[in-house]
C-alpha cells in the first residue's frame, strides 16, 4: 500500500477514534474511492486495519524489572517524608495534571497485557571455564570457555525449543518429538528431536556440527531463510564453509574427539597455529601475544587435561618457539615457522 493511502487510512482511524464525525465522512468517501479502483485494495485495507488493531497492545516483557530494582535500592535508604518540598511538588504536579486534562484528549485505551511473555536468558562461560547448564526441559548443555548461549524463559511451553549459541557447546537434548529443539549459531541452524551433538561456531571460522547419537538436521540460515537441510548421523559432521557458504558432510573416525574439550582436552589435527593460540586462550583464560604471523604453520597434537606450562613446552619443542609468561599474558617469539 503506498504512502498516500496509508496516510489516508491513519487519518481515517484517528478521526474515528476521536469521534470527529464530519472529517470521518469525508475520509470515508475518499477511502471508498480508492477501494473501487482495484479489487485487491479491499484486501490491503483489511490487512492495514488488522495491523492497526494488533499493534495496540505491547507484548509484555521483563525488561523494566532490572531498572526498577535499582529504584528500590535507592529508595530503601530514604523513607518517604512530607515536607515543604513535597507540598510544592504536589501542587505543581496537580496543576500540570489538571492543565493536561484540558489539553490532552481523554483517551481511554485498554492497556491489557497478554499473559505470556518471552524473556531471553543468556549464560556465558568466561575464558578458562566450562559451564554446565540444565535447561528447564532437562536438556543438558556444556558451554565451552569463551562462549555464550541464550534461551527463552518459556522454553518449556514454546512450540519450538530455540536457543542461540555463540562459540562452542555440547548438547544432550531431552527427547520431545512434539517440540523440536533448534540451535541458531553463526549462519547455520541445527534442528533435532532428541540427540547429543557438538556445535562449534567460533567467529571467523567455518561452523561445524558433530553428531554423537541420534539424528540431526543442519541447514544454512541466510537472513532467516533456511537452505535444504543435510541430515547427519553419529560419527558424521556437517561443515558450512565460511568462504563459499556451502554446507557439506564429512565422515569422521570418532565423534567423541569433538567433545574432548568437555574434559579439558585439546586435539589439533593440522590446525593453523593462530587457531591453536585462540583455543589455548579460551581454554586457559590467557592472552597470547606474538609479533609473528606464523603463516603456513600447522600443529598436530593431543593434550589431556594438563597445565598450560605443559602445553607450551610441547609447542616449544615442536615449533622451536620461545615463550615467557607474565601473569595471564604469554609472549611468544621465534619459531621455525617464520
Amino acid at each position, binding site marked *: 500500500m503506498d504512502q498516500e493511502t496509508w496516510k489516508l487510512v491513519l487519518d481515517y482511524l484517528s478521526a474515528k477514534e476521536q469521534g470527529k464525525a464530519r472529517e470521518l465522512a469525508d475520509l470515508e468517501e475518499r477511502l471508498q474511492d480508492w477501494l473501487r479502483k482495484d479489487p485487491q485494495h479491499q484486501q490491503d485495507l483489511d490487512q492495514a486495519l488488522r495491523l492497526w488493531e494488533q499493534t495496540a497492545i505491547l507484548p509484555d516483557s521483563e525488561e523494566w524489572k532490572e531498572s526498577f530494582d535499582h*529504584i528500590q535500592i535507592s529508595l530503601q535508604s530514604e523513607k518517604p517524608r512530607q515536607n515543604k518540598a513535597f507540598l510544592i511538588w504536589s501542587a505543581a504536579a496537580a496543576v500540570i495534571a489538571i492543565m493536561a486534562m484540558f489539553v490532552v484528549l481523554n483517551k481511554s485505551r485498554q492497556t491489557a497485557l497478554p499473559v505470556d511473555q518471552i524473556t531471553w536468558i543468556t549464560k556465558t562461560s568466561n575464558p578458562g571455564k566450562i559451564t554446565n547448564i540444565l535447561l528447564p526441559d532437562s536438556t543438558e548443555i556444556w558451554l565451552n570457555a569463551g562462549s555464550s548461549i541464550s534461551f527463552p524463559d518459556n522454553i518449556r511451553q514454546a512450540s519450538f525449543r530455540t536457543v542461540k549459541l555463540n562459540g562452542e557447546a555440547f548438547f544432550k537434548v531431552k527427547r520431545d518429538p512434539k517440540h523440536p529443539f533448534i540451535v541458531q549459531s553463526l549462519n547455520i541452524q541445527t534442528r533435532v528431536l532428541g540427540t547429543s551433538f557438538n556445535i562449534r561456531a567460533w567467529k571467523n571460522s567455518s561452523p561445524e556440527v558433530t553428531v554423537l547419537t541420534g539424528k540431526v538436521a543442519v541447514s544454512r540460515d541466510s537472513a532467516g531463510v533456511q537452505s535444504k537441510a543435510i541430515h547427519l548421523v553419529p560419527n558424521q559432521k556437517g561443515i558450512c564453509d565460511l568462504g563459499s557458504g556451502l554446507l557439506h558432510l564429512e565422515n569422521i573416525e570418532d565423534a567423541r574427539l569433538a567433545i574432548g574439550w568437555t574434559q579439558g582436552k585439546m586435539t589439533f589435527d593440522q590446525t593453523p597455529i593462530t587457531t591453536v593460540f585462540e583455543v589455548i586462550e579460551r581454554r586457559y583464560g590467557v592472552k597470547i601475544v606474538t609479533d609473528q604471523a606464523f603463516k603456513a604453520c600447522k600443529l598436530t597434537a593431543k593434550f589431556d587435561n594438563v597445565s598450560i606450562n605443559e602445553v607450551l613446552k610441547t609447542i616449544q619443542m615442536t615449533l622451536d618457539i620461545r615463550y615467557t609468561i607474565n601473569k595471564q599474558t604469554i609472549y611468544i617469539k621465534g619459531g621455525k615457522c617464520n
Partner: protein
Amino acid sequence: MGENNTAGFNEDDVRTLDDKAFEDLYRRMYPTLKKYAIYLVKDIEDAQLILNDVFIAIWKNKILLINEKAYLFRAVKNGANNYHKISRSNFQHLEDDEVQEVIDVSADPFQTYMYKDRARMLYHLIDQMPERRRLIFYMYRIEGFSYKEIAALLDISVRTVEDHLVKGFQFLQERVLKNEAEFR
C-alpha cells in the same frame, strides 16, 4: 477536609500511591518512556538515571497523578533539558534518522513467525525500525499520543511524525506480507 490541605486542590484529585500502584506505573510506562529518554539524551545509562529520578520523585511524594502520561513525559523532558545544561560541552547530537536507517537483516522472519503471539511478532518487527521511528510508533500506538503531542514532545514537525508512522506501517505491512507468502 482538613486545614492542612494547603496545596489548594481537592483530595479526590490524588490517590495515595502504594507499592503495587507504583510498580504498576513503572512497568506500564517503562517501554516507551525509556526510549523517549534515550532519544533525548542519546545515552542509555544517562537516560536510565533521568527516568529513575522522575520515578523516585513521584514515589517520595506518594502521589498518583490524574494524567500520569502527560506528566511523566514532561518530567522526563525536563530532566533531559537539565542534563543538557550540565553536559552540553561533551554532548553531540546524532541525527539518528541518518545514522540508524539500516535495518537489521539478520533478524529472521522464520523466528519471527514462530512467535505465536501476533502482537509479539509485530513488535519484534517494530523494534527493528530506526530509533526515532520506533519511538514515534510506541508513543502513537501504545501511549495513544496524537501527532501533535508527539511532535511537541520530540521537537519535530507534525509532518515528520506522520511521515514516520506511514513509513513504519508500510514496513510492517511489507514484512508481514513477505512472511505470509513464505509460510503459506
